[in-house]
Every structure is written in structure tokens, then in C-alpha cells.
């Protein structure tokens, strides 16, 4: 069980890294829009444009 004395602090370090990364992502505006990404995945162009698109 002594391995826990190493693993738990290691886990906390990783956690700190994850929180730092998330804070950076929030501050750089990646989470400003919480609505569009949810629907964006549903809308993809599964319809190709015609061979000769009108000018």
C-alpha cells in the first residue's frame, strides 16, 4: 500500500496540470461558445455540390 504515498501526489500533480490547461483554454476563448459545438457535429456537408456549379 506504500505505493499510494507516491501515486496520490503524482495524481495531484497531473490534476494541477489539467486544471492549468483548462484555465488556459477558457482564457483563450475556447469555451466562450457553449452552444454551437453541440449542433455543429450534426451538420456536415453530406450533400456534394453539383458537378458544374452555376457561376
Amino acid at each position, binding site marked *: 500500500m506504500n505505493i499510494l504515498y507516491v501515486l496520490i501526489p503524482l*495524481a495531484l500533480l497531473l490534476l494541477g496540470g489539467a486544471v492549468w490547461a483548462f484555465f488556459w483554454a477558457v482564457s483563450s476563448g475556447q*469555451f466562450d461558445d457553449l452552444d*454551437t459545438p453541440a449542433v455543429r457535429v450534426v451538420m456536415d456537408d453530406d450533400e456534394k455540390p453539383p458537378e458544374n456549379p452555376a457561376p
Partner: protein
Amino acid sequence: MSAGVCFHCALPVDRLGEFQVEIAGELKSVCCPGCKAVAELIRDTGMTNYYAMRESAQPGAGRPADDAAEWQIYDRDDMFTAFAHADGDSAEATIYVGGMYCAACSWLIETTLARLDGIVSAEVSPVTHRLRVRWHIAQLRLGQILKSLADLGYDPQPLAPESATRPEVAEQRAALKRLLVASIGMMQVMMFAVGLYAGDFQGMDVTMQRFLRVVSFVVTTPVVFYAARPFFAGAWRGIISRMPGMDLPVSIAIAAAYIGSVYAMLTNGPAVWFDSVVMFVFFLTLGRFLEMRARHRSIDRSTALSTVLPNTVTRIDGEEQLVIPASHLVTGDLLLVRPGESIPADGFLTEGMTMVDEALLTGEAEPRPKSINDSLIAGSINLDGVIRMRVEKTGGDTTLGIISRMSERARYARPAFVQLADRIASYVVIAILVIAAVVASVWYVAAPDRAFVITLSVLVVTCPCALALATPAAFAAAGTRLSELHLLVTDGNAIEALSKATRVLFDKTGTLTRGVPVIVSTRIFDESFEESQCLRIAAALETVSTHPIASAFRVQDNESVATDQRVAVGDGVTGVIDGQRWRLGRFDYVARDTTAAARRLQTTSVYLGTDAGVIARFDLDDEIRPGVAATLQQLKGLGLTPGLVSGDSKEPVSRVAATLGISDYHYGCTPEDKLEIIRSAQQAGNTVIMVGDGINDAPVLAGANASVAPVHGALLAQASADVIMLGESLEPIVRGVLTARKTMRIVKQNLAWAIVYNAAALPLAALGYVPPWAAAIGMSASSLIVVLNALRLSGYGAP
């Protein structure tokens, strides 16, 4: 899609089959060549999916502007520096996209832009209607991007790079960070807590137990000091203002449990409660986050307002005329404003004379004459003369800016119902603190070692969270649902009034009617002319006019062409057709009779004539909005009596009332009369909804129990209305009443549940049957039930 409605923009089609587009093998009717071009563009680029994916079309949305703006101006360098931010060989700009209304629009815009050469990225937020686009400077210019948006039927408006982050974005970012710290902290500490509880049952090494307590402490500390900081700040504000909200017992519980746990950790006490602390903070933070999201969801009206101002203005520097970005305007600039352009700033007229449409601010459809030294308001539209103006106030200092700030404030203010809930909560808080003190002293005498734990449980389990959340959660969910129904609620109290309403009073012009004149009858004085011929001539003459009346005469593909057209400001238009000089306008202008008697003739008639005399008269009237009769029928079905109050004269009011089957109508009303009608209805025990759009309606709207203003009406009316209605239809009112009734039902369920829960949990906790972790779960679960019950409002199948 019913016949008679444009396939693309959902406005009524005047003549079916005049313009048609073939989409997916079917012929669809559209209303105008503009919509036809856009629909064909969407089809030919293979994006027909847009029509399948969009929500029900909002009338008027996506219809291209009649006169395409000069997008090339944005290719110039000074425009580029004003609106874009260059970064190496690429540039970024934020563009407000007017006319988009759902996620399918953002898909259409993103996909179309991605096909342009030189676009690096394009992202549209359907919530804020902002497009963030990045492109290669060498391959593409800003003007081309704007033009491709305009080709799709949208109204793009480049925004100046924001100097500071908008307040709601900053608020959301901070809240997200807190939520993450609270949730991750909760998960970690719960994990350690499972180890500790297992140790209690199976026996555990004392060093390991101390170690797990210390790591729990390490993770809990940022949760308490960072994520829970708003609660401490709120409690402190409550103490200072002597109005303790529910933040106070929350803070006491958090602080007590945290300090008690730290003490137990240092002294090797029997138990720590770090798990209760983090769970409590997490659920509270989640609740606050959801409330904030609901508050932000209403449409970004400040930007919507700024779109009524032009992007570019023509400044006069000595002899030179310079087109500059409107954001570069300063006080004292001399500007040239052409007919059809909107006035970019507050100021006064220095040269020329014109008619100005101030409907946006005053709701008054009748244009106002302006001559030298008359004041001009930003956002009004210059109708017929080329004028010069001196700028006095720009941007946020203009009347328009001040009014838009007034209506904006409602979004950040806590509505009265939340304040009321807070006041009730503050009494409950004092009661809880007293009960906790009694419980603590009784147990201190009976069993001193259990006193702290039991007092903590009492504080946590009786937290009036569910009680305090019961009303706001339901109202927030209702606000979201109503905004999906095209109703923006600016005052939450309106929801209660809507649910109880027994009378609906409508204003006539601009509310029941479109506020745009149409020709209702034509009278020919000269037998040698036919009606269709007169209409064609009138239409040809009106092509130069931007006056609202001109839209009544507009026809497609007119074979008559007028030359040498001139606008006589305030009087009418003149032009030459087939060698004959024609005049169209007021009687005195057409008949060249300047006697006072002729001047007094009613203005709802327009005359057509030549030098030889008057030939025809067109009577204009307001057209009743489509679907109004059905809406009134539905309102009657819900037990609401519709009524009509108008400042107009008897004849048009009674005609509209008869057409719509309204038996209760009042004409010739001053605002005071209207207010009096509302008062007497209220005294008779009615709850009154007032629907009106004019500036004169502002005090009337304030006097009603709930007031609704259409978004196309006067800004002042909107500023004093509880609910702003988007779109052309009145139908949202019906769904609004249904949603409000459901909301009040849910509020009652929530309050009943919260009271039953607290009444049941308190004795159990006081008797020592509830450990702190169970109290935290109980408190969170009761709050969660309240929130989930409220969310039923925003779900599918809601009215």
C-alpha cells in the same frame, strides 16, 4: 410551408407563381427576385440541406436588402485597419451577422465561407450572431467576405475589435473556471473519502488515514477559497446591507465544516467532513452556473441596435468627400447624408431640407420635416433630401445609445421575483441560525462530543437552497423557453401576470396592423384613364422616393419608366412619362392649390395628376397583420378577452375591430385615456396584458400588469415593456400565456416540495440521525429535484 408564403423568407407572396425556384425537384414560390437569387445560390452550391435543417422560418429573415451596399469600400486600407486585426500574413475580424436566427444559418455561413479561397477559419455563434473569420490577406479582401454574406441574404456588420472583453463573457469564463475547480475537487475528495470510509469499517493504518486526510485538505482548500468565494462575498454583502441572503448560512456551513475538518485533521479527531464541503460547493456552483447561463441567453440587444447605424459615413473635409468608418466619427465633423441612408450620429442639419423617419425611436410612422438647425437623431432614416449635418454626439452618448443601455440594464439586474425570494430566504436564514444555536446548546449539554457534527448536519440539511431555487429555477427555464418562442422577458414578474391575465388590450397601428400603408381603393376622376394605368404611372414616379408611402406603390417589372424625377420634400414626387409631366402626392401639390382648405385634406389619400388637373386618388390604409384573427381566437379560447385601444379616429378603428371580431374597442384615445381604460379594467378585477409599440404607449405599457412590445416598434416602448416580441406574428403571445401558466404550476410544485423536504429533514437532523455527508446529499438532491422539475419547461413538447 403553406402556399402564399415565400419559401425562403416566409413573408407573404403577393402573386403566386410570379417568382419560383426549383428545389429538390419541386417548384417553390418565393416573394421577390432577391429571395429567388438567394435560394438559387443556396441550391446551386449544394446546400439545400439548409432548408431541411432550419427551424421554422421566421418571417422576413434571410430576405436580402433591396439595395446592395457598396462592399468594395471595405477593401480599402483604412477600413481594414478599422475592422480587422492583421497577424502575420493573415487577418481576423468579428462580423455581426444580421438576419440569422438558428443553427442552420451558422452552418450555411460557415460552409459557404469555407469554400472561398483564402479563408483560414470561420466560426459563427448562433447565440451572439457573431462571425469570427480569419483569412489570408494576399488572397482575399474583407469586402469580398462581406459581399458573400450579403449574397446569402444576411446583413453583415463588421464590428470594431473589442477593446475589452464583454462583461458577460468575462463572467462566464470566471464561472466556468470555478465550476471546473469545484467539480474536479469534488471527484478527487470523494475518491479519498471512499478510502477513509472503507478504513472506518475494515481498519486502517493511522499514517495512511492521516495521509488521506491531508490530501483531502490539499484538494478542498482551493475549492473553498477559489470556487466558493462568491458565496463568502455574497454573505459579506448581505451582512453589510443587513439583508442576509441564503449565502450566509451556506458560508457558515462551508466555513464551519472546513475549519472543523482542519481541526480534526491536526488533532487526529474522529472524522473529517471535507467530502461534505466539496459536494456542497459543487452543487451550489452548478446551480449558480445554470442560472447565469439562463440570464445570458437573451439576445445580445446592444449589437442588434448598433446595426441600425451605418458602417460608413461620408465626411466633408473642405471640398473633399471622404468615406470613413462610422467608428471614426468625432464631434464637430461635417457629414453628407444621402436619401435612404440612416443618420449616423446625433447632430443638427446645416444644409438642405428633408423628411426624416424617426419610427425606430418614436414609433411614429409619419415622417418629420427637417430644415436647417433642426436636430437629427442617430438611427433615424433620411428619406428624401441630400443633407449636410454637424455631429454633436456619437456612439454611446447618442439618444439611441442611452436608450439601448436602458433596455440592456434589465439583463444584468436581478429581477424582482429573485429579490423577493431572497427576502423570504433571509427570514428563513435567521430562523435556521436560531434553530442551529438551540440544537447546538441542547446537544452540548446532552452529548458534547456529538454537538458539532449534529449542528453541522442541521445547518447543511436545512439550507434553504431548494426554497430559494424553487422560483428562480422555474423562471429562468421559462425565460429560456419563452425566448425560443420569440418572447424576450425583461421583467420576470411579467410571467406571473401573463399566467393570470384575463384581458389583452392591443394598440392598432403597428401592432394589429403592419404599420405599412397599402392601397385599399382607387378613384379615377378622368374617364380616359384606367386604374392599372394610373397605378403603373404612380409606381414609376415613386421609384425615386424612399418615403414609406412609396412602398405601397411598388410593383415588379414596371413597363412605364419615368425620367427627370424629382422629390418635393413633404409634398410628393414628380417626373416625366411619355413626354407628359406627372405629379403624385398631396392634393395641394398635385392640384397646385395652396389654399388652407386644400392643405387640411386628409393625408391618407395620395393624388395623381398632370398639369391639366387631378386624375386619380389612391386611398391608403394600414394592412392587418396575417394570422391576427386566428391568434385572437386562440386567446379567447384561453379565457382572455381581447380589446382594442387606439389613438386613431373612429372609422379605421371600428373597421379593424369589426374585421377581427373585437367587440370591446376604444378610439381617439390619448395615452391618459388608455391608462384609464387599463385602470378601470384592473379595478373590475382583471389582470391586463397591454400590447403596443409606439412611444406614446410607454406609460400605458408601464400601467398594465404585463406589457408586450414588438421588436420592430419604438425603442422607448421596448425599454418600458416587460416582454419584447420578436418577429412579425402575434402568435407568440398565445404560447407565452400557456408557458407562463405551466411555469406557475411548476413554481407551486417546487415550493411545496422544498417546504415538505425541510420540514421532514430538520427534526431528523436535530435528533442526530443524519450524518453530515447524508445531509449534503439530501440538500443537493432536493435542490436538484427542484431544478430538474423546472427544466421540464424547456423540454420538447412544451407549449
